[in-house]
C-alpha cells in the first residue's frame, strides 16, 4: 500500500485537533496541549512515511491528485488537491517535526497561562493545518487560501497578548498594534500575489501546478505576461518572507509569545515565501530579469537586516533580524541559481553541476535555518522564561545557572555563524558558492552578482558577530541584575526539545553529503530542446571536493571566525569597547540602526499622514456635499412650502385676484399659442 494515498489526512489531523481543542480544550489538561502535540506527532509520522515514498522516487517526480472545487467558468476549473514532490515533503516533514517539538516545549512555556492555553493551542493547531495545507497544495489558489490562513494565525498569535498582557496595558497595546501591522504589511504582498494569480489564471485558464509547470503550456504564453506574473507572485514572497521593503512587520511580531516567534516567525511560516519561490521556479526562470530582481532583493535584505541586529539589545529582536537576513540568504541563493537556469532556458544550454546549485542551496539553507533558528528562539524563550526580561543588558553569566540552554544555544550560534561542520556552514557556503558562480560570468549581471557576493560575505561576518555577541551578553561575563533572580534551568519538557533541535542544528548539514543535493535539485525539462537541469552525478566526493578546493569557502570560514573573534573581544574579553565605534550610541549610524532606518515611521506616515486624512476628507465630502445635497433638496422643499402657504393670506379678494390673474395668464398663453399656431 502507498502512504501517499493517505497524504490528504495529514492536514486534517491538526484540523481535528483544532476543532477538538476549540470546543473541549478547557476540559483537557494543559488546555489541550497534549492533543496538539499528539496531532503534530501523528502528522509528522505520516509526513515522514509519505516523504520517504516521495523522496525515494516511488511516484516519479511528483505525486498529483485533485478534486474539482469550483467551476468558475466553462472549462475553467479550480481544483483542490495534493502536489507532493521532494520540496513539498521536505517542508511537510520539518514543519510538522518542529511544530511537534515546539508544542512540547510550549507545554512548559505556556504552563502558567491559565485559560489562555486553550486559545493558544487552538491557534497553533490551526496554524499547523494551514502550513501543511500550504505546502501540499496542488494549485496556486489553494496555496493562497492557506497562505492567508497562516497569515491569520500569525495575526492571532502575535496579538495573543493583545489584551490582559502580563506586562500591563502598554504591552498589550503594542501587541495589538504589532498584530495589525503584521497582517496589513503581509497583506500588501498577498494582494500582489492575488494579482499574480489573476495574471496566470487569465493566461493559463487554470492554476494547477501540473498545468502551469508544463513546458508545453508555458511555451504558449508570452514571456512578458509570465514575467509580470512572476514579479507579482514574488510580491507575495516579499510580504510573507519579510523581504525588503515589506520586512518591518517581523521585528514587531516579536510581541507574540516566544514559542510563536520560534514556530511561525522563524521556522515555518516565513519560509512559505521561500517555498513559494522555489515552487514557482518553472515560471520564474522564464525571465533572467525576474531572477536578477529576486537575487537583489535577497542580497539587500540579507545585508540590511543584519546591520540592524548589530546593536540591538533585545534578545528576540536580534534573532528576528537575523531571521530576516537569513531569509535574504535563501532568496539570494534561489535568485542566483535561478538566474543561471533562466539563461539556460533562454539559450537552451544544459545547466548542470555547481551551476544548478543555487536552488539546492536555498532550499537546503531553508531547512537548516529552520532547525537552528527554532533552537535559538526556544533557547531565548527559555532564558526569558527564567529571567523575565528580553533585555540582554540585564542578562549575562547565565552559563552556570542554565547549562543546557547555554550549550544548546551555543551550538545554534555556531551553526548559524557558519563555523565548519555545523549545519549552517554547509548551506551558507553553498549560498555563497551559488552567487559566486554567477559572478564569475561576464556582463552587468555578473558585476551585480559580484556586489551581492560581497554583501553576502559582509552579512556572514555580521551574522557571526551579532550571534556571538548575543551569546556572550546572555551567558558570558558576570551576571546582570535580571540574572540574579533567575530560578535555574527550565524544566525538562522545555529543555529536551532544545537538545533534539541542537542535534539537528549540528548535524543536518551532513545530509548534503548523502544525496540530499540530488533530492533537492530543480529537475525540470525545458521546452522541447535537450535542455536539462540537475546536479547529475554530483555525489559526496564532488561536493566535498567542490567545497574544500574553492578559495571562497575558506574566505567564508575566515569571515565567520573574524566575526566571532570581534564579538569575543568586545563582549567576552571586553578589551575592545563597542562604544568606540559608535560614540557610545551617539553616532548617526547607531541611531539609524536603532530606529530601523526609520521604516516604522515611514509606514505610520503612510497610514496616519496619508490614508487617514484622505479618509477624513472623504467623510467630510460625504456629509457636506453628497448628503448635504439630499438634505438641501428636502429643506428647499419645506422652505418653499412655508413661503407658498403665506400667499394664502385669507382675504377672499386676493383669491379673486388670483383667479382673474390666472385667467389673464391663460389669455396670454392662448395668445402665444395662437401666435405660434398662426391663427
Amino acid at each position, binding site marked *: 500500500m502507498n502512504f501517499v494515498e493517505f497524504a490528504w489526512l495529514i492536514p486534517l489531523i491538526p484540523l481535528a485537533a483544532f476543532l477538538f481543542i476549540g470546543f473541549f480544550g478547557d476540559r483537557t489538561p494543559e488546555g489541550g496541549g497534549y492533543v496538539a502535540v499528539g496531532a503534530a506527532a501523528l502528522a509528522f509520522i505520516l509526513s515522514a512515511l509519505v516523504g520517504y515514498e516521495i523522496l525515494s522516487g516511488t511516484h516519479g517526480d511528483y505525486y498529483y491528485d485533485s478534486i474539482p472545487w469550483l467551476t468558475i467558468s466553462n472549462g475553467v476549473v479550480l481544483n483542490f488537491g495534493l502536489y507532493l514532490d521532494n520540496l513539498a515533503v521536505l517542508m511537510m516533514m520539518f514543519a510538522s517535526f518542529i511544530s511537534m517539538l515546539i508544542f512540547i516545549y510550549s507545554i512548559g512555556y505556556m504552563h502558567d497561562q491559565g485559560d489562555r492555553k486553550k486559545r493558544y493551542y487552538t491557534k497553533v493547531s490551526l496554524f499547523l493545518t494551514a502550513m501543511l495545507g500550504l505546502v501540499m497544495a496542488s494549485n496556486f489558489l489553494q496555496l493562497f487560501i492557506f497562505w492567508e490562513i497562516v497569515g491569520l494565525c500569525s495575526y492571532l498569535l502575535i496579538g495573543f497578548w493583545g489584551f490582559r498582557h502580563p506586562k500591563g496595558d502598554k504591552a498589550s497595546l503594542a501587541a495589538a498594534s504589532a498584530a495589525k501591522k503584521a497582517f496589513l504589511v503581509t497583506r500588501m504582498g498577498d494582494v500582489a500575489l492575488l494579482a499574480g494569480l489573476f495574471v496566470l489564471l487569465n493566461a493559463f485558464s487554470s492554476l494547477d501546478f501540473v498545468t502551469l509547470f508544463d513546458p508545453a503550456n508555458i511555451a504558449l504564453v508570452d514571456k512578458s505576461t509570465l514575467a509580470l506574473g512572476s514579479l507579482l507572485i514574488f510580491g507575495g514572497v516579499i510580504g510573507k518572507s519579510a523581504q525588503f521593503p515589506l520586512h518591518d512587520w517581523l521585528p514587531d511580531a516579536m510581541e507574540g509569545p516566544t514559542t510563536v516567534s520560534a514556530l511561525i516567525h522563524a521556522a515555518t511560516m516565513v519560509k512559505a515565501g521561500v517555498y513559494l519561490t522555489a515552487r514557482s521556479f518553472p515560471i520564474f526562470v522564464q525571465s533572467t530579469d525576474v531572477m536578477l530582481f529576486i537575487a537583489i532583493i535577497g542580497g539587500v535584505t540579507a545585508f540590511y537586516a543584519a546591520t540592524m541586529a548589530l546593536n540591538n539589545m533585545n534578545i528576540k529582536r536580534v534573532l528576528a533580524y537575523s531571521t530576516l537576513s537569513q531569509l535574504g540568504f535563501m532568496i539570494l541563493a534561489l535568485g542566483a541559481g535561478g538566474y543561471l537556469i533562466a539563461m539556460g532556458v533562454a539559450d537552451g544550454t544544459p545547466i548542470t553541476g555547481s551551476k544548478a546549485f543555487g536552488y539546492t542551496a536555498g532550499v537546503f539553507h531553508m531547512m537548516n535555518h529552520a532547525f537552528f533558528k527554532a533552537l535559538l528562539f526556544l533557547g531565548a524563550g527559555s532564558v526569558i522564561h527564567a529571567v523575565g526580561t528580553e533585555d540582554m543588558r540585564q542578562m549575562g553569566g547565565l552559563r552556570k545557572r542554565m547549562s543546557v540552554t547555554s550549550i544548546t544555544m551555543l551550538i545554534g550560534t555556531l551553526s548559524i555563524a557558519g563555523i565548519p561542520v555545523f549545519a549552517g556552514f554547509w548551506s551558507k557556503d553553498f549560498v555563497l558558492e551559488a552567487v559566486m558562480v554567477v559572478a564569475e560570468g561576464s556582463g552587468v549581471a555578473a558585476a551585480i552578482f559580484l556586489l551581492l557576493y560581497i554583501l553576502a560575505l559582509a552579512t556572514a561576518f555580521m551574522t557571526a558577530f551579532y550571534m556571538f555577541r548575543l551569546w556572550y551578553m546572555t551567558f558570558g561575563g558576570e551576571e546582570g541584575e535580571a540574572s540574579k533572580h533567575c530560578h535555574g534551568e527550565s524544566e525538562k519538557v522545555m529543555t529536551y526539545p532544545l537538545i533534539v533541535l541542537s542535534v539537528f542544528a549540528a548535524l543536518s548539514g551532513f545530509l548534503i553529503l548523502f544525496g540530499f543535493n540530488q533530492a533537492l535539485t530543480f529537475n525540470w525539462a525545458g521546452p522541447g530542446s535537450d535542455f536539462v537541469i540537475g546536479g547529475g552525478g554530483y555525489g559526496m566526493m564532488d561536493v566535498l571536493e567542490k567545497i574544500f578546493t574553492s578559495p571562497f569557502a575558506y574566505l567564508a570560514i575566515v569571515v565567520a571566525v573574524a566575526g566571532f573573534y570581534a564579538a569575543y573581544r568586545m563582549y567576552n574579553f571586553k578589551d575592545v569597547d563597542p562604544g568606540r565605534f559608535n560614540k557610545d550610541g551617539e553616532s548617526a549610524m547607531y541611531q539609524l540602526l536603532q530606529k530601523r532606518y526609520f521604516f516604522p515611521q515611514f509606514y505610520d506616515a503612510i497610514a496616519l499622514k496619508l490614508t487617514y486624512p484622505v479618509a477624513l476628507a472623504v467623510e467630510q465630502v460625504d456629509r457636506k456635499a453628497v448628503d448635504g445635497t439630499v438634505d438641501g433638496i428636502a429643506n428647499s*422643499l*419645506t422652505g*418653499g*412650502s*412655508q413661503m*407658498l*402657504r403665506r*400667499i*394664502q393670506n*385669507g382675504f*377672499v*379678494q*386676493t*383669491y*379673486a385676484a*388670483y*383667479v*382673474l*390673474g*390666472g*385667467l389673464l*395668464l*391663460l*389669455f396670454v*398663453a*392662448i395668445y402665444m*399659442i*395662437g401666435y*405660434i*399656431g398662426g*391663427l
Partner: protein
Amino acid sequence: MTLPDFTLIAPQLIVLLAALLVPGLHFLTRNDKLVGMVSIAAVVAAGLYLGWMILEGVEGSFLGVYAVDAFSLLLTGLFLMVALLVLLASLHSVERDRHHGEYYALLLAATAGMMFVACAQDLIGIFVGVELTSISSYALVAFRKNDPRAAEAAVKYLVIGGLSTALTLYGFSLLYGVTQTTNLAEIALAIGAAPSVALYVSMALIIAGLGFKITTVPFHMWAPDVYEGATAPVATFLAIGSKKMGFVALFKIFLVGFIAAQATVVSDMQYLFAILAAITMTVGNVVALSQTNMKRLLAYSSIAQAGYLMMVLAIATEYAVIGGLFHMITHVFMKGGAFIIVAALCYLSIGDKLSDYKGLAKRAPVLAFSMLIFLFALAGVPPLAGFVSKFVLFSSAVGSPGAEMAGQWIWLVFIAVINSAISLYYYARVVKFMYVDEGESDERIKVPMSFMAAIVICLVAVFAIGLYPEPVIKLCEAAAAALLG
C-alpha cells in the same frame, strides 16, 4: 305628444324627490334620525336601480339633454356612492345642529346636480347641474350658522364660486357663439375641426371657471379655507364630490374634441392643460408639506390629486381617460375615507390638528390603521387602490397600448412621480404622529356605528380595488368608450 322615458333618469329623479320630501318629512315628524335614514334609503334605492341599469346595460337619451350610457351610469353611481358616504358621515356630525331636513335636502340636491352633470349631453344641462350643486353646497358650507369660521368659509366659497360661475357662463356664451350650438357632441366636432382664437378664449374662460371646482392652481385658493371652515362631512362632499363633477364637465366639453382632433394634430390646449397639471400637483404637494391642520392638509392633497387628474386632459388618449376615471373612483374612497375619519375625530372632539393625532394608534387602533391605509393609498403605495389607479394613470403619460410610443408627456410623468414621492412625506408625517409619537391621554375612543360603516366601506373598497381591480377597470374602459363614442 308622447312623454319621454323618465326611467332613464330615474336615479336622479329619486334623489331629487327625496330632496324635496325630506324637509317636509322633518317638519312633520321632527325626527332627526328618520330624515337621515330616509335620505340614505333614497340614495340606496337610486343606487340599486342604477345597478340594475348597469347590469341591463340600459342606454338612451332623455330629450337629447341627458344621455344614459356606460359613462354616465358609472359616474352617477360614483356620485351616489359619494352621497352615501357623506350621509353616513353626517348622521352623527349634525346631530347637535338644527334644520336636519334642510341639511339632507341640500345634500341630496347637490348630489342630484352632480348626477345630472354626469349624464348631461348639452351645455345647458352641465351648467344647470353644476349650479345646482354649487348653490346647494354654498348653503351646506354655511350650514353651521353660529360658527363664524363656517360663515367666513361660506362667504369665500360664495364669492369665488359666483365669480367662477360668471366666468364659466361667459365662456359658455362665447363657445356657443363660436360653435352655434350647445350640444356637446357638435361642440366636440367644432373643437376638433377648426381651432380659432375666439374658441381658445372661451376655453380659457371655461378652464378658469371650472378650474375653481376642480381646484386647479391658481383657482384653488378657496379650497383649503372652505374645507377647514366647513363641517367635515361637507368638506368631504366638496373634496370627493363636486371636484369630480368639475372633471366630468371638463371631460365632456374638451376631451372628446381633443381626442377627435388628435387624429390630425395634438391640440395646443393640451400643452396648456399639461402645464396647469404640473403646476397644480406641485403647488398642492409642496404647500401640503407645511400644513398643521388635517383638513387643510387633505385639501392640498386633493389639489395635488386634481393635478394628477388633469394629466388626462393633457394626454387625451382613451387609455388616459380610463386611468382618469379609475383614479377618480379610487380617490373617492381614499380621500373620502380619510376625510370621514377626520369627521369622526372632530365629532369625538379630538380636533383636526395634526398634533391632536398623537398616539392615535393606541387610542383608536382601527381608525389609525384605516387612516394609515387611506393615506398610503393616496400616496400610491401598493397593493392599495391608489397604487393601481396611479399605475394606470401615470402609465398613460408614457404611452397607450397598441399605439406607437410618442413620449411627449414623459416630462409630465416625471413631475408626477416626483410629486407622488413628495406627497409620501406629509402622509408619512401623519402616520408618524399616529403611530410613533406618544399622545397625552391613551383612553380608548368609541367610534359611532355610522362612521364605522362609512370607513369600512372605503377600507374594503381600497383593498378590494387594490387587489382585484379588474372589474373596475373594465367599467372604466366601457365608460371611456362610451364617452368618446
